[in-house]
Structure formats: C-alpha cells, structure tokens
C-alpha cells in the first residue's frame, strides 16, 4: 500500500506516533493499558462532538452551537427525569437526550435551511440563546443528584482493572456509544444517497439544487442529526461526571472543530473523513492528557494545541499554495 504523504490523516498519524515514541522513551510507564483507557475515555464525548462537527463541515457549514445544545440537553433531561420520570432506565435517558437535542438542532435547521442564514452566524446566535434560556429560566445550580437512570449508566464499565502500582483503570461503557455513532455516521455518509447528497451540497450547493437535490431537506436533516448527537454527548458527559453542571462543555466547540480540521475536513466543505476526525480527536486528547509525560508543563497545553492546529492546517495550505503556483 502506498502512503499518501499529502493527506492530513498521514500527517496526524505520524505526529501521534512520534508523540507516543517520545513519551515512551521518557517514561516507560506510558505504554500501559491505563494510558490507553485514559485516552479512550477522554475521546468519548469529544469523539461524538467531532463526528457531529465533521458532518456540518462536509456540508459546507460550521456549527458552534453543539456544545450549548449538549449542556442544555443534559441539564434539562436531568431535571425532567428527577422531577417527573425518575423510573426511566438509562437508555430512556439517552433517547430523551437525543430527542431534546434534535429539537434544538431543528431550530438551527429552520434558520439555516428555510431562512437561508449563514451557518456561523446562526449557530453563534443560537448558542447564546440556548445557554441564555437554560441559565435564565431553567437554572444555574449544578444538579448533583442525577436521576437513577443516568446514575446507573454512569456506573456501566466495559473494562475495569488494577494496575501493577495499585491504581485502578477502567473504560466506560459509553465508549461503545461513541463507536456506534461513528459507524452509523459512516453508513449514512458512504452508503446512503442522503450522505452522498451531504457531500454534493458541500461541493456545490447551486449544482445540487439544479440536479434536483432537495437542499433544504438535507440541511434540515444535518442540523437535526447533529443536535441529536450533541444531546447524546451531553447525557453521556453528565452521567460520566455524575453531575449536570450547566457551565460545562460550552467553550469546547472551537477545540472540537480544530480536531476535525486537523483530520483533514475542509472549512470550504465537501471534504472530510471519519478516520481523519478520529485521529484528530486522538491527537488533541493525547496532548491534553499526556503532555506532561514529555516534560512539558501542562500550562503549555494550549500553546501545544495551537501549534498543532497551525501545523495541521498550515502544511496542507502551504502545499496547496505551492501546487497552485506550479500548475498555473
């Protein structure tokens, strides 16, 4: 198999590899099951967010409201379940989260698909609206006693074990949900006409309209789907953290988009792969969790992520510029 060095996936995979080699050299304990489970655990919520952000980027839009959707959903779901439906099992909580998230996504969808407003502006506005509604009318205090369904879900572990040094490691069952989200999204994008239409709209919205693609319906679907994924991520986040804090998650959106772009999705639309997105998330989580292993103090974390973003987008941009100069 030949390796395409110009692809972002290759680049990110190499950086991850280099990071791991350096980390293993400076701390042999790095290559352990505990590191791996930490990494996977850190990728659960970020991974679902990234998949959601990627679909929007492929369609040629950008969504910055998904973290606000997630925060809103987890808070409201926890509150409703506590007040009215304490008996709902964990899967019911997840379904309810997806439903609430989908409704909020539909709000974005209406503004984007039917009013034709620019996606960045709409989601910037709805981000403030969702957050504002939650904090003004619903509440600002953390919900520390989650409903039983979410508590039950929070305790579901896939793997649990003890390290040689006596510390524990575990992998949360929600990891499977992230895997499932990736698989379902892959099937939609690559095995259904709906998915191909998402790519087509990202390639050229006008052309899509001309060959009879119902652009509005596709866009509407995208934002509902993204809302549902964000809602799902919100419930998982709260369950794993065992608290629904309305101030959580918001502020993460740009890092998520950065991870997706690192993985090769283009802001202009039409391009993006799940492999790249997963690698991008892995790199961001690795930097967040393990920078210290390389002897870099954690205060330098955001400098490191910033440099990665510039490197990950700068190299392809620079290559494209050189290729254009050669070809012209």
């Amino acid at each position, binding site marked *: 198999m030949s390796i395409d060095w110009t692809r972002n996936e290759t680049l990110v995979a190499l950086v991850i590899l280099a990071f791991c080699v350096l980390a293993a050299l400076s701390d042999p304990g790095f290559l352990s099951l505990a590191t791996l489970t930490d990494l996977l655990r850190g990728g659960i919520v970020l991974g679902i967010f990234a998949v959601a952000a990627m679909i929007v980027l492929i369609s040629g839009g950008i969504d910055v409201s998904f973290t606000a959707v997630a925060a809103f959903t987890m808070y409201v779901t926890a509150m409703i379940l506590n007040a009215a439906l304490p008996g709902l099992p964990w899967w019911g909580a997840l379904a309810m989260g997806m439903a609430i998230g989908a409704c909020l996504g539909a709000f974005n969808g209406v503004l984007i698909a039917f009013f034709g407003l*620019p996606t960045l502006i709409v989601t910037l506005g709805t981000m403030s*609206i969702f*957050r*504002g509604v939650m904090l003004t009318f619903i509440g600002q205090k953390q919900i520390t006693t989650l409903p039983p369904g979410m508590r039950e879900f929070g305790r579901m572990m896939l793997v649990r074990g003890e390290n040689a040094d006596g510390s524990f490691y575990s992998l949360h069952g929600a990891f499977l949900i992230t895997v499932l989200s990736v698989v379902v999204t892959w099937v939609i994008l690559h095995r259904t006409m709906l998915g191909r239409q998402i790519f087509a709209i990202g390639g050229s919205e006008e052309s899509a309209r001309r060959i009879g693609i119902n652009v509005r319906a596709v866009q509407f679907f995208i934002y509902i789907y993204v809302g549902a994924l964000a809602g799902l991520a919100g419930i998982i986040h709260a369950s794993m953290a065992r608290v629904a804090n309305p101030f959580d998650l918001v502020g993460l959106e740009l890092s998520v988009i950065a991870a997706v772009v690192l993985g090769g999705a283009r802001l202009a639309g039409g391009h993006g792969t799940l492999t790249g997105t997963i690698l991008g998330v892995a790199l961001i989580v690795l930097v967040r969790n393990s920078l210290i292993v390389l002897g870099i103090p954690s205060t330098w974390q955001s400098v490191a992520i910033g440099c990665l973003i*510039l490197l990950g987008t*700068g190299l392809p*941009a620079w290559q494209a510029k050189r290729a254009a100069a050669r070809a012209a």
Partner: protein
Amino acid sequence: MQPIRRLVASPEGRLAVIAVVIFVGMALLSPDRFLSVQNLTSMAFQFPEFAILALAMTVTMLTGGIDLSVVGIANMTAIIAAMILTSVTGSGDGVGVLLMALTVSVAVGLVAGLFNGILIATLGLPPILATLGSGLIFTGIAIAMTGGSAVMGFPPATAWIGNATVWGIPAPLILFTLLAVGISLLLTRTAFGVKLRMYGANPLAARYAAINIDAMLIRVYMLSGALASVAGMVVMSRANSAKADYGSSYLLLAVLIAVLGGVNPYGGYGRVIGVVLAVLSMQFLSSGMNMLQVSNFARELIWGSLLIFVMIVNTWRAKARHA
C-alpha cells in the same frame, strides 16, 4: 413616510431605529434609574473594551477574514504590560512606566498581528483556523507566563485609562471614540481602506487588479492586533489586574456585534457607524436589564435573539431587493 423608508432601507438605518427603540424603551421602563447620570456614565465606562475588540473584528471581517485571536492578544499584551508595571516598584505615580508598558503592549499586539498576517497572507492558512490556532498560542503564553493567576499591584497612574474622566467624559469612551473615528476614516477615506473592502468583495479580482494583497492583509491583522492590545489595556486598567482568562466571552460578543452592525462576514461590506450602533444597542439592553433585575444570563439570550432577528431582516431585505 419617505424619510423613514429610506432610513430602514440600510442595515445601519434599521440598527439606529433599534438602538433608539431600546433606549426609549428602557428609559420608559425605568425612567429615574436608566436616565440617571450615574447609569449613563457607568455605561460609558463599560462598553469601550468590547467595542474596541469589535472594531478589530470588523476590520478583519471586511476582508472576508476573522480574528479569533483578539482576546488572546488582549490578555497576553495586558499580562506583559502588567509585568512591566509590577516590576517597577517605587515612589511616584508611575506615569513613565505606564507609558512604557503601553508602548510595549501595543508593539506586542502588532507583532502578534504580524504573526497572524504571515500565517494568512504568506502561508495561505484560512483566517478562521490561523487565528484559532494563534489565539490558543497567545492565551497559552499568557497562562505559561503567569501560571494562570492574576497579575496585580500596579502604580496608581494605571487606573487612569479605564477609570478617569476628562471634563466629565470617561477616558475609555474618549479612547473608543478616537479609535472609531480613526478606523472609519481609514476604511472610507484611504486607499488602504477601499482596497481592503474591495479585496473582501472578490480576492481574486483584487489580485488581477494588481493590489498588493500580502502587504495589505498583513497590515489588516497587525491593525487588529494593535486594537486588541488597546482593549487589553482598558480591561487591565478597569480590573486593576491582568489574567489569562479575562474577557473570554468577549470573543463571540465581538463577532456578534460586528455582524449585528451590518458587517458582511464574507467580506466586502461594513461600516463603523453600524458597529457603533450595535455596541450601543447591546449596552442599553444589558444596562436596562440590569436595572430591571433581569439575570445576567438573559443578556446572552437577548443578544443571540437580536442577532438572528437582525440577520433575518437583512436577508429578507436583500432578497426583496433582488426580486
């Protein structure tokens, strides 16, 4: 009827109506408190810091770009200034050291903007990603320099920028007015301003029209960086401290204000007067709601709703004109 129709025909005109309606509405709802001298002055002290950031955003948006690093630059330059200010302990009011700190801060802002400009113009990165990345770096440098804690203990002169009044007019307001007039002149009455707007309208045509694009873009982001550093000085002076995570909500607020002010986020259109009106609307709304004991978070809700409302109206007007 005719003059009113002409007024609401432009985004700025509609915004002026909105600003007046909000002002009058708030004055009616809470006449003695909203119209009090104390409230009016306090508003004039509050808005310049994010209004200056919105000016920076406006300049970059006119080229079809965006500067997501403004808050990072503001905090980084404020911390550097703060470190200079705290390193000099001694007698006197510290005017000399304040001037030095100011100069260094603006210079660092220019260098940070130069960095953005090189990434965007020379290396060809999309502005949104270049400034997202560089913003993290600037914030990261600010964190690394301070370990995340606040820097404080400035000489007394520092407070002047953010808290003094000149003939009863708050210093930050004077600063903002000067900057707004300056930027407005720059955009409408200089070759640089016209070119950057034309570039925003069609970057390729600008290249074919022999406009020196790289130099222009670098200057745009340097200007944005310098404005961000000035905003950082105002925040530092008003808070009497500097910290890496100050004003993090200002980033999206600045984008929001620029767009609300009628600036086309894809480039090519935008006027300073629109941005000023948008800032005033926001400030009237927040202060008024403060008086009415509305929660702080309701502001976010209202800002977001206002943004979407204005966008719907603008888009609808544009469509109506095309048909």
